């Protein structure tokens, strides 16, 4: 019984003279190879050339600073409790007088670590964040040789004041609309 109608019955018959030469078959193969030289390439030269990413690609996290360059994160722990992979840990500290230009509120995260090997890049942390401090960006997490280096601390996560990272594609229309309305804001 045939499962499909594509099965071919193999007939073992004597090859003709032309077939014994193998030349037409070789030329046929060459033709396919040469034709591919002029086709569009399926690969890209990665570091020089980059594929377009989805607008909602979720990669390397960033801890955002506010307009005045102060850290937005207050170590409230909601990202860590929302994290299904339990990748986030933090230690909070109290802001001292004179540090008002560094931290936005009286509490801040003195240690904030994400284990990039545990992280599944689901984006629940940015959804949980009440301070718009953490966002996932379209940057890739670098490869490395040692496991320990994948625990990213604040040095790798916090945005540099001179190199702001645009996260507006990550904010939905509703969020941007909400932000316009000062009335709803509970913090300054």
């Amino acid at each position, binding site marked *: 019984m045939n499962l499909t109608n594509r099965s071919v019955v193999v007939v073992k018959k004597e090859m003709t003279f032309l077939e014994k030469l193998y030349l037409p078959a070789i030329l046929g193969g060459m033709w396919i190879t040469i034709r591919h030289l002029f086709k569009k390439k399926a690969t890209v030269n990665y570091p020089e050339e980059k594929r377009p990413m989805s607008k909602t690609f979720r990669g390397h996290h960033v801890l955002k600073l506010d307009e005045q360059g102060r850290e937005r994160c207050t170590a*409230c722990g909601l990202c860590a*409790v929302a994290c299904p992979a339990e990748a986030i840990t933090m230690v*909070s500290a109290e802001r001292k007088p004179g540090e008002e230009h560094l931290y936005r509120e009286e509490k801040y995260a003195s240690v904030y670590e994400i284990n990039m090997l545990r992280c599944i890049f689901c984006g629940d942390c940015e959804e949980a964040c009440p301070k718009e401090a953490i966002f996932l960006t379209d940057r890739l997490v670098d490869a490395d040789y040692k496991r320990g280096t994948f625990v990213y601390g604040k040095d790798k996560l916090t945005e540099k004041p001179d190199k702001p990272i645009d996260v507006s594609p990550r904010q939905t229309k509703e969020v941007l609309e909400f932000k316009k309305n000062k*009335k709803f804001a509970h913090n300054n």
Partner: protein
Amino acid sequence: MPKVTIDNQTIEVPEGTTILNAARMMGGPSVPPAMCYYSSLKTSGGYCRTCIVKVTKGSEKDPRPMPKPVASCRTSVMDGMVVENITSPDLLEARAGVVEFLLINHPLDCPICDQAGECHLQDLGYENGKALTRYKFRRRTFEKIDIGPYIKLHMTRCILCYRCVKVAEQLCPGRVHGVINRGDVAEISTYITEAIDNEFSGNMIDVCPVGALTDRTFRFKSRVWFTKPMDAHRKCKTCAGKARIWLKGSEVLRVTVRKDEWGEVQRDSEGGPLWICNECRFHTKKASDWIIEGPSEISRHSVISANHYDLATLKLDVAKQRKKLEGKKVLLGEGPLNPNNV
């Protein structure tokens, strides 16, 4: 004994029981929330109005309904009384209004507040409140004060429930703090910034339903849901020494009283509340000081039990699953659902 009907459920309670306590005896979703009433503190209750209920029939003798919602913590039951709580949409609307009033001046700084996760106002707002505020004016603000070496007073968060005043009155002889001023500018104060150093003054932190009074020795140490609560005891000269310790690893970050299902202090077998002294609360922060009895019972719906799976709840889950599967032809195999494996 008077019979009272709350949300279509009838219960017989002793003479003089309040509606709130009758509902608590019944349990379930009909129990009104309470922000200022605290069963272990005499004369508490009657300030916050969150426990309001609708009385549709006053009693058997006088069946007229009460004209306005009444505070269930201050109204005793009458024989034949009919009370509506969650079955009355009007009442829920009224309660949402009360919550809105309580939140008018509340700063909503939950991300930095140490009370977050075990805050009654958070629960109340979540269950009975509205998502948005209509308030347009500047919120009432106060400076933070250290009252004594152990307690931080964050008056901005206070809802003036007077529970801490009752603690000062009833547990601490020679009280030094109370509520001064009136109305919008009323505040909890020590008047002259006198240190509170009474042995039992630390219980103020536990009775505070919001984050107005917080433990300075625990300030910003950890979020409550990253710590694991354990019931523990120790020998203490001044108090019963039965407390709840909050562990992170083997480190005791905080010591509080044991709380019951209503968020109030637990009682011993004779009915006396298990208040703890400042020595136990602030000075015994080594795990070796305590004899641990076992993990505390925390509601599964609380964020404190998030990511914690204790044996009791797991067993409960298994029992529930088994009940579901009863009578169905299912191969139970190796798993815990098979009764032969336990």
